């Protein structure tokens, strides 16, 4: 199924989220409302460093159709050093990943859309070298 995705380029390619100036919280992906401050909130773009640690993970053996060729792959929730958590693949072997593993962002091809052949790019994370 083909749904327009150019709208997310800023977030998916540059890891830009939102910061609420009122309470200081940082959100990823972007929000139009701070759920804590609501009307009192004031939001601005915020570039994330792309460094964090694995908060939890799984190894996917039954993938959706368009990811069949890369399975099994590691999916994880990464806690970024600025606070927000995101869902991402980890570019490592299944047996390497663990909770607390330091990781950093890389940009990769995520998948190809079967019907129209559109290639989607976005972030993955990889283990930080020389730890």
């Amino acid at each position, binding site marked *: 199924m083909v749904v327009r995705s150019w709208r997310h380029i800023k977030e998916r390619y540059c890891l830009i989220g939102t910061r609420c100036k009122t309470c200081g919280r940082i959100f990823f992906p972007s929000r139009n409302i701070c759920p804590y401050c609501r009307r009192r909130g004031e939001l601005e773009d915020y570039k994330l460093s792309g460094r964090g640690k694995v908060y939890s993970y799984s190894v996917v*053996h039954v993938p*959706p*159709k368009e990811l069949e060729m890369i399975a099994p792959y590691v999916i994880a*929730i990464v806690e970024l050093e600025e606070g927000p958590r995101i869902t991402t693949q980890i570019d490592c072997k299944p047996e390497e990943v663990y909770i607390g593993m330091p990781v950093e962002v890389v940009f990769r091809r995520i998948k190809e859309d079967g019907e129209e052949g559109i290639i989607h790019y976005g972030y993955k994370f990889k283990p930080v070298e020389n730890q």
Partner: protein
Amino acid sequence: MRDVVIIGYGQTKFGELWESSFRDIIVEAGVKAIEDANIDGKDLDAIYVGNMSGGLFIGQEHISSLIADYAGLTPLPCTRVEAACASGSLALRSAYLSVASGHHEVVLVGGVEKMTDVVDATSAIATAADQEWEAFFGATFPSLYAMMARRYMYQYGLTLEELSMWSVIAHDHGYRNPYAQFRFRTTLEQVMKAPPVAEPLTLMHCSPVSDGAAALIVCDAERAKEFVPKEEMIYIRASTQASDTISLHSRESITTLKAAKVASEKAYKMAGITPDKIDVAEVHDCFAINGLILLEDLGFCKKGEAGKVVAQEKIRIECEDFVTVNPSGGLKAAGHALGATGIRQVGEIYWQLKGDKNCKDRQAVIKHGYGITANVGGSGGTVCIHVLSNNRNR
């Protein structure tokens, strides 16, 4: 608000119903419920239906009209309600409020899903999660719950054996349920050695892809006297619902379902009871870890203790000093036809509290007369709770 009771229930078998179409199964369940309630189609004021994704599973939206049509019930108002796997109980909640308000008296509530007609069910199911920020990156539905399980193990020391015991008991219960998708027993070793789906979860920690339909008749308690004796009415004492972020990663904690805590606390308050008054529960074990987490979030045990409770087999039908959990076999063994599940859970509690012949081989001990259902949408973005009572101890 008026008292609202359930006076009838019917369901299809859950499973791969290759011979039957979407239209066939929802009509079968509806007709059974109508007959069970001893009413006529003409007595009905409205229909509500829970369905997750007619659009993606059978290429059909507007199933409310389709169902009223093929059940021969036009021009009755028919409304479809959707909240992923919680669609069924949200339909019941809408029906409940419409009767409690005084607007309707007798309402048919159905739940239905036909999942085995499409090629790529995994992608369709993933639309219950955040499509742009979870599924896009390769998170499947099992993998979200797998990450909950992994984190839970890390924080509370849950073992794979404890988690796997959930599935063993589920199959022991489902074995006695003629409508269940899986009617075989299993062992700890079989559960742990089954093919991995999303580590640490194996196929035997996951509920199956199912076709199925279930239907209830809800009715104003006064009007119900026309149709059934008072002792066959089961009262809806609470119907509550709460939401959470659609993405798992956006939540403060991924080892609790906040929406389940919020909705169940409201439900106990609405029913005027505490968790220890619950005799029997049907909880949403789309994946075994969710069953454990719900035991805690519904107040049956403390945070981090569910693994021990399950390992000690306290949730079994036979165990009298703890709530009986998922006598039907739960989603794991009875099957998980997404939109139908919430209705099937309530139907099981209806049977259990009535002491219906349909659950004679798996009857829980009913002391206080209360049962509860917890139906979860997505990875916890929606939770809907119902508390039922047979009203014999009031």
